[in-house]
């Protein structure tokens, strides 16, 4: 397989085993840990990452976020898809 992985609403994004989301006391912030990489997701990205339970499909994830943030579904869909695609490109999310 070559090129970026496809992503649609039936995709089930998850954190690969070697990627860890953890609250760091010293910084008072959430950190996403992968080999030789540390990301500090902002509040919303963090919320998205916490919802990646390996079972929820992207469509359902977008529904839930749109509801909880009282935001238009299209807007949420665009932002979340872009976030996940970006993280997948960095090897920090599996699609």
């Amino acid at each position, binding site marked *: 397989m070559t090129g970026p992985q496809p992503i649609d609403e039936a995709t089930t994004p998850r954190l690969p085993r070697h990627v860890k989301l953890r609250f760091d006391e010293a*910084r008072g912030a959430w950190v996403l840990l992968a*080999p*030789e990489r540390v990301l500090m997701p902002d509040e919303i990205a963090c919320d998205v990452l916490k919802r990646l339970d390996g079972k929820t499909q992207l469509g359902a994830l977008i529904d839930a976020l749109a509801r909880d943030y009282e935001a238009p579904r299209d807007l949420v869909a665009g932002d979340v898809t872009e976030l996940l695609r970006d993280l997948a490109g960095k090897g920090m999310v599996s699609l």
Partner: protein
Amino acid sequence: MTAPIPMGLLAELTHRCPLQCPYCSNPVELARPAGEIDTATWARVFREAAGLGVLQVHLSGGEPCARRDLPEIVAAAAAAGLYTNLITSAVTLDEARLATLVEAGLDHVQISFQDAEPAGADRIAHMPGAHAKKLAAARLVTKAGLALTVNAVVHRQNLDRLGAMIDLALELGAQRLEVAHVQYYGWALANRAALMPTRAQLDRATETVEEARRIHAGRLVIDYVVPDYYATRPKACMGGWGRQFLVVSPAGKVLPCHAAAGIAGLVFDDVREKSLREIWENGDAFQRFRGTAWMPEPCRGCAHKEEDWGGCRCQAFALTGDAAATDPACRLSPAHAAIGGLATAEASAAPPEFRYRRFERGAEAPAPAPAPAAAAPASSLSGIPAVSAPHERVDP
């Protein structure tokens, strides 16, 4: 200046290693096994590191598997809440050992490959059969469900097979490939003429990496460490001195960078005598080049000083004799033109024999080819991780 919160700890567990790579990051004067700090001390170091804000520990060496207590060490790091990364040559990593490490909480394994084909790889590692053993170990790692990084240290004698090394990483199922041009410290500096690529080799390599990144996006992350001698701007070595990273040597010395032992006049604190916090915050070696106040011109007035932090102190010392000088990798350094010329001259001559890494008698360091601005004092030679340059980064 006040100390920032560190991100990573490089734990050099031992200098013992069954391989003899001529570009090894370790100092030419290797620490003896008898002086290694024990399991309990490492466990304390990990707890103190986590307390300081360290997030990741890189268990390295030498060959970390040479420590019989490696499973206990991994368990202690995991218990401290650290992300654990094993940086290994993997020649002694069998299924049973790997299982104990996984159980101890290991998160990730990085295996170095010396070449894409066995004869060349075994010659560089100076160990017959090494390549085959690495392949077997890498397969065990992915079979165990662990993430794998393939580390390819590249230089004039293997660069022409970079494409094959990328294919190897894919075939082994690695998630990440680190293509690291040799950084010239320690043993690598002693072997520089045998390792220095030509400019054309470098450019081809960069193209190969860029193309592979495009083709394999989402499947293989490729990190690329470029060689300083052909650069125009220096690397932000270690993300800045005493900003993100600390190194604990096999004998318990705490360093801002793996090569720092080579800088004459720096004194390193010992974890057996002080807390890691005290050393990180106030230790002389950490304070010396922390921040920007120590910088002379041209760095002092430069707009990039908080991007690259003036480059690498160890390289400045090795090439100019002054650790506070601007890294000669920077085109604004007075020594810059000379190192480019040196690289070109060495790369176009026939490569000399390797001087293999091993425990040597006495502390005599090998004389490198005369350095441009000032000859490096023999005692200035030390190591930086050719195994893995721990380039921690925080993407905003």
